[in-house]
């Protein structure tokens, strides 16, 4: 097969032993070994790659989601930066509200603000509606500025006028500003098209009116790439007027406008002259007008606390803690459920595991001690449920266990239970435990059976002939030898049961559900995917530890099926 396997060269010659082709045997052997290893890896590689791509990558992606939190800094980039200076003692200053206004306006146009609201609402109730209502009224705040400017000069109503003014009639473009805004927009809107915007802010105007240029650039990018319209033909956003107001509130800018010569300079000068007519109180009072919750310390603390790109928040939530401005603290009493659910999941899985041992051990013992032909026949009784659809078995238990179900009917019919006091055996823990014990029992019986098959019956006879009672012989001789089987079966059953979803969902009611039902709820109903991912990661960690233990105790290679 390999060159190393050919006969040894002269053993009598001095120096290293050589293979037939003259290379030292040691090296030749090593080469052969390396080739064999390579061949084995080549055979495994396609599957390994397949599993990594279709299975491990999704799991890793999910783990990533449990800490991912870029939504805050992507949606409110300017606010997050402005909040850096906030000491958290009192309400933030005008600068923060101003940043929030421009961020929120763009986000509302892109319909991203409700997503952020929902995200932050997980941490502080009420933020969702705060963002929703504010988003709806973000136009109004800008309109106050728009009205003033349009009264000063009606040309401010015209799309073309704005376009000329912002391009300074085709002056030197400010590419830095453009690419910076484009980057921000791309982070905000995931599927933003690429293409020609048909606009570039003039460097001249962005030096003169920085805020206005920024707001107009946002407007231009959004109009061209998200709406697919022509920038020069669309009326600018209300936010652009507000930005102009911000710029003109600055005395130095007003002075600079006086000497500006570009297109629309006269209109700008008129606007600068009317600066005192602009809404007093700035953005802060405008926000407080919309909703006084914007003065709330809690809202701002939440935004600041969660402004980092990665957060432990979801993991803390999944153990009933939360991240607040003063560090980690327990959640409100009426929202604490996850510790309870984890405990319940473990408790029920343990109960199921022990019931499986209790029911599986006698059966495995019987199977291992019967003649092969009989035991193979009985084994079919074990394997049939194993091969029957999970849904079928679960619905069968529904039929059996419900209050008007078969078992209660029989009990009532035979007079053991009074018709008025039928047993409640479903939609609670009992139902889940019974159905899942049934479903997982084969996973206990099969490993137990394969271990017990290897225990020679003569040991038990020897013990008895040496004077042991039946019980002693079993407990001191047979049982210890069957422990590996119990271990294998228990870990398998436990691993499978703590991740169960379908059966508890159908028969568990409210008290018989597992943490996995909660994960499913967060994925499909509450849409809190980060929390679902964090809960899943914790569950996964638990399973992996058990998996590792299983590998240590039993060895993965020794898993047997049927």
């Amino acid at each position, binding site marked *: *097969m390999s060159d190393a396997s050919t006969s040894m060269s002269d053993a009598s010659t001095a120096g290293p032993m050589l293979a037939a082709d003259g290379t030292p045997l040691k090296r030749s052997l090593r080469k052969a*070994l390396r080739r*064999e290893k390579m061949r*084995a*890896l*080549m*055979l*495994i590689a*396609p*599957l390994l790659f*397949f599993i*990594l791509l*279709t*299975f*491990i990558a*999704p*799991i*890793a*992606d*999910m783990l990533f989601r449990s800490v991912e939190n870029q939504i805050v800094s992507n949606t409110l980039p300017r606010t997050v930066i402005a909040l850096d200076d906030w000491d958290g003692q009192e309400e933030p200053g005008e600068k923060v509200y101003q940043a929030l206004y421009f961020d929120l306006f763009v986000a509302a146009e892109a319909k991203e603000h409700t997503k952020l609201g929902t995200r932050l609402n997980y941490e502080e109730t009420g933020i969702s509606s705060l963002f929703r209502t504010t988003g709806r009224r973000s136009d109004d705040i800008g309109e106050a500025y728009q009205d003033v400017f349009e009264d000063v000069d009606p040309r401010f109503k015209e799309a073309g006028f704005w376009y000329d003014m912002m391009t300074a009639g085709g002056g030197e473009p400010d590419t830095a500003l453009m690419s910076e805004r484009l980057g921000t927009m791309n982070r905000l809107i995931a599927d933003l098209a690429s293409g020609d915007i048909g606009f570039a802010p003039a460097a001249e105007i962005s030096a003169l009116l920085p805020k206005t240029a920024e707001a107009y650039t946002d407007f231009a990018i959004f109009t061209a790439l998200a709406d697919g319209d022509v920038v020069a033909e669309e009326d600018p956003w209300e936010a652009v007027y507000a930005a102009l107001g911000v710029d003109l509130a600055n005395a130095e800018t007003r002075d600079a406008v006086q000497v500006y010569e570009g297109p629309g300079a006269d209109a700008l000068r008129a606007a600068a002259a009317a600066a005192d007519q602009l809404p007093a109180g700035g953005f802060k009072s405008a926000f407080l007008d919309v909703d006084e919750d914007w003065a709330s310390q809690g809202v701002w603390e939440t935004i600041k606390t969660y402004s980092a790109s990665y957060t432990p928040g979801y993991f803390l939530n999944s153990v009933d803690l939360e991240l607040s401005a003063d560090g980690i603290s327990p959640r409100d009493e009426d929202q604490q459920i996850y510790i309870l659910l984890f405990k319940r999941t473990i408790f029920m899985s343990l109960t199921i595991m022990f019931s499986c041992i209790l*029911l599986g051990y006698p059966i495995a013992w019987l199977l291992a001690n019967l003649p092969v032909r009989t035991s193979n026949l*009985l084994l*079919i*009784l074990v394997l*049939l*449920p194993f*091969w*029957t*659809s*999970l*849904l*079928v078995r679960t*619905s*069968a*238990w529904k*039929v059996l266990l419900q209050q*008007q179900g078969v078992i209660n009917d029989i009990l009532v019919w*035979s*007079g053991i239970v009074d018709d008025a006091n039928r047993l409640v055996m479903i939609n609670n823990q009992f139902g889940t435990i019974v159905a899942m014990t*049934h479903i997982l*029992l084969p996973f206990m019986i099969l490993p137990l059976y394969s271990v017990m098959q290897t225990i020679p019956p003569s040991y038990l006879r020897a013990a008895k002939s040496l004077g042991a009672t*039946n019980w002693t012989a079993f407990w001191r001789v047979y049982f210890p030898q069957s422990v590996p089987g119990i271990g294998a079966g228990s870990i398998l059953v436990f*691993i499978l049961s703590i*991740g*169960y*979803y*379908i059966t508890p969902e*159908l028969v568990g009611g409210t008290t018989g559900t597992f943490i996995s039902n909660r*994960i499913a709820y967060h994925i499909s109903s509450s849409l809190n*995917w980060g929390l679902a*991912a964090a809960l*899943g990661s914790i*569950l996964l960690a638990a*399973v992996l530890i058990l*998996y590792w233990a299983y590998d240590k105790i039993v060895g*993965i*290679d020794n898993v*047997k*099926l*049927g």
Partner: protein
Amino acid sequence: MSSIDLPSTPKPSLTRFVLPIVTGAGALFGLLTGSAMDSPSPGLVIGAVVGAALAYALVSFMPSRRAGRWAAVALFAVIGLLVGGLPGIVAGAAIGGVMGWITYWLSTGDYRNTVPIYYTAPQVLWHNTYLFICGLIFFFLIAPIVTILPLSFNAEMFFTFTPKMLALDPEGYSLRHYRDFFSNPDWQQALANSVKIAPLATLLSVSFGTLAAIGLSQEHVPFRRPIMAILISPMIVPLIISAAGMYFFYSRIGLQGTYWGVVLAHAALGIPFVIITVTATLVGFDRSLTRAAANMGADPVTTFFRIQMPLILPGVISGGLFAFITSFDEVVVVLFVGSAGQKTLPWQMFTGLREQISPTILAVAAILVAISICLLTVVEMLRRRSERLRGMSPA
């Protein structure tokens, strides 16, 4: 059951052993029947008397076991008819069968057949109790499946045994749910999807899995344990986590809601089964066979297909069956990864359980149970074949 009495087994006493136990059993059945008719005490007494009389009559006058048991069945069926009409016959016949069996089991000494001859009476009692408990556990395993079957012939649209069914009225039964399954486009579409998805997923997992299993069974494999751990992980990671992960990741790469997404997901879930079964077959594989083939001039490909493959084929097929059933029975992952175009049979069953009242799922269940039994037989036959083949190869 052997009918030859061992010489050392004393024939059990009729009056001191058989009669009291059968009387007790009769009393128990009498009590149950009595309480069903709201008169437990008379039932108890009548049951005890009938049981005692039966035991005495059978043991004394009916040496033929078969005839005696049929007589008991007939007698109790008649009693059942008198007491409870048509369903009474069935219940009565069942009770009669049990009573007849107990009587002969005790009176002929069969109850000691399965234990060594030196066992004391309490040991025999314990052993038989143990067998009885095992019987109950087997009943626990099978009962839900047995319950489903008659319900699938329910004439009503609900999941419960109707009074008509219990009265064995033919009107209470119908094939409408089976008809619905075969005529309803939703179910047929789901079946078609399952049939389209499962074989391809199986093919993927079997081809990748077999190749990898052969690689893993080589003597020198670097990182064998971690690789094995990764390959087995789809079986160990809770389905809800796999499903959630795939949902997010496949969404990102555009596979969510596509045929290939479901196929890939199911193939990944099936792979551990293929790995496990094929490596198990390879453990017993004799390497000298491939060396001999190589020695005689066969190239590796020929060796693989002519020597290795036929010997590990049973393992490959049973791994494939497991992978197939995994895909065919899988509901959690497909619910997340699939969309309407990939609605499989289990998905439709899940919908049937949650969204609409449709006992059609019971008919489907019955059909699936029948298929399972067929598959199980195939696996069992393959296992025997594998053992035979390996027994032939020099170990």
